[in-house]
């Protein structure tokens, strides 16, 4: 299994080193990148199957003991999110093969895929890592590569958006590192599980120091995961990036930081300490504000990618609420929502990428009649936006339902009201798009007889349809996925 893990991690890294050598053949690079990410996804699935059957295992680098070395832990939790990351990234890269030259110059395409694969590698290590400092280093790699995915498009607004993103990510990293330094001062260790054990006897005597460390680390991670008041970098960066980059950043990169947040809350601190610090209440409050305000900001936008970007801010709010509930159901709901949001948001960004690529439409009022001009992508866009609103039979509904169950179980029923309000707000900005696309002017209705699937390359339509389908599949048959999530939750807080 160690060999599979190593090849799974090194495959994207080594190919990223090879790509610059064959940069004259951008299409070959694009196909290779897609294939390699898919191979990584297959290996991640093998790892997930293995750990689901045999329990988690770990591997230590650069030392013989986990206390000094860097430990990677492959559990059903980390392997599950590794699968999510690699599968969705390979779909996004498949989409980008025919689409990327619209946004990126020909001689930069090889660089784009180099960066994308380094990003995949860094995110995979973030999933598995069990070391606080190692997490800092790889968060920095994710920050640089994610910024590069934004600023590789040679447009004015991309440079500024990239700069803001880079600087804020770096501030987030630094605040995180300051918190890690305090934890190191207290415990003398950076291994997450060891820190957890060593913190328990200090819980009463050093409460203030633990509080400070927690505050620093959570604020640092919140900047990176775009939790509401700290989201200011997100709309510009996600809206100005090339379509495939927006999908990667919004659907995947945010989730990588949230996984680190989960690890910090549940592995490093543990539920008892979090309850003692009453962190849950803050998280609930921030999450509620995020999901309402994110939707409000989205209402004011005229550009479809900015709407989607602000909707990410709102959806991060849901996930934070799930974490703040501090019960197994809440964590379960948060992880389900992370998965379903990753699928829905990449479906939305990719299908809007089709509109921009094919019809050059990205403003809200230009959606007039798109349902007849680009039927397949508009159907996927429709399904995913219904999922965002939380209509039954989509994965978004299941996520919101689980979250409501979790809040009731935690005795915080007031949250259900806010979840409903936020869903109405979501409907207020997604439904006008859908209505325009299908009802709109009557001149489009005559196309109805000669309706054809849009003439864009198959490699763009296939990933879009797969993502759209999985939104429905996950909404109708969530049970097999629930079993996987149960295992993942059990790793973090024994049993649901």
């Amino acid at each position: 299994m160690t060999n599979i893990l190593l090849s799974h991690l090194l495959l994207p890294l080594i190919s990223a080193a090879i790509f610059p050598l064959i940069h004259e053949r951008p299409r070959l690079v694009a196909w290779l990148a897609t294939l390699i990410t898919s191979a990584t996804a297959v290996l991640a699935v093998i790892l997930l199957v293995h750990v689901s059957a045999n329990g988690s295992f770990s591997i230590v680098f650069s030392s013989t003991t986990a206390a000094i070395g860097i430990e990677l832990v492959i559990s059903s939790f980390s392997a599950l999110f590794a699968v999510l990351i690699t599968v969705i990234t390979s779909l996004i890269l498949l989409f980008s093969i025919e689409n990327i030259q619209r946004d990126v110059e020909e001689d930069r395409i090889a660089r784009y895929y180099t960066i994308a694969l380094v990003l995949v590698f860094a995110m995979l290590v973030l999933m598995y890592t069990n070391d606080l400092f190692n997490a800092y280093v790889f968060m920095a790699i994710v920050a640089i590569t994610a910024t590069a995915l934004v600023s590789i498009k040679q447009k004015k607004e991309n440079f500024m958006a990239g700069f803001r993103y880079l600087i804020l990510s770096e501030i987030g990293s630094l605040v995180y590192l300051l918190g890690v330094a305090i934890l190191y001062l207290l415990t003398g260790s950076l291994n997450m599980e060891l820190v957890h054990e060593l913190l328990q006897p200090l819980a009463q005597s050093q409460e203030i120091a633990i509080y400070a460390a927690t505050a620093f680390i959570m604020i640092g991670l919140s900047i990176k995961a775009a939790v509401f008041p700290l989201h200011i970098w997100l709309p510009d960066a996600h809206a100005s990036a090339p379509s495939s980059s927006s999908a990667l950043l919004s659907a995947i990169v945010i989730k990588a930081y949230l996984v680190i947040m989960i690890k910090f809350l549940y592995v490093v601190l543990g539920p008892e300490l979090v309850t003692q610090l009453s962190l849950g209440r803050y998280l609930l409050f921030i999450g509620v504000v995020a999901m309402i305000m994110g939707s409000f900001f989205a209402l004011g936008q005229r550009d479809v990618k900015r709407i989607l970007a602000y909707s990410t801010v709102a959806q991060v709010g849901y996930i934070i609420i799930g974490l703040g509930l501090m019960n197994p159901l809440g964590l379960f709901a948060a992880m389900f929502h992370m998965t379903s949001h990753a699928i829905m948001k990449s479906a939305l960004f990719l299908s809007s990428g089709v509109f921009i690529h094919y019809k050059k439409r990205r403003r809200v009022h230009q959606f007039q009649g798109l349902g007849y001009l680009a039927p397949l992508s508009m159907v996927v866009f429709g399904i995913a936006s219904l999922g965002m609103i939380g209509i039954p039979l989509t994965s978004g509904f299941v996520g919101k339902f689980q979250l409501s169950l979790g809040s009731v179980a935690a005795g915080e029923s007031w949250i259900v009201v806010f979840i409903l309000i936020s869903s109405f707000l979501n409907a207020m900005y997604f439904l006008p798009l859908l209505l325009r696309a299908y009802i709109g002017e009557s001149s489009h209705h005559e196309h109805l007889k000669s309706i054809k699937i849009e003439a864009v390359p198959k490699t763009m339509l296939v990933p879009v349809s797969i993502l759209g389908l999985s939104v429905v599949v996950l909404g109708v048959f969530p049970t097999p996925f629930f079993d996987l999530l149960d295992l993942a939750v059990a790793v973090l807080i024994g049993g649901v």
Partner: protein
Amino acid sequence: MIELLLQQIHFIGALTLFVLGLYILVANTNLIKKVMGVNIMNTAVFYFFVAIGNTPNAQPPIYPQTEAFANPLPASFILTGIVVSVSITVYALALIMNIYRTFGTFDTKEITLIQDGKEPHSDDKHTT
């Protein structure tokens, strides 16, 4: 009071540097000064991390081993941290070069003016 301050001197020093860097980052409109501010914040965190490894009256960790010795791990962490900080700085400066080429200025206020005023709204330009 003084004793308490002296005990916590590293923490106070690091926090002061950190806030100073944050102030430079927020108060300046010049992009390069902003990067400098981030670098000062970096230094603050690294200083704090290295100061943790200090043990009073300690020897260097490699020789001799019989005495109390300073913790060598924070220094090696920070070596990695410096590499990270350098690469972020390099990338930020490269971005600033591109910003200067397109906008002809380092000033965020002027850049905002150019983005809002002389050009059409930034959302319209994606569809090339």
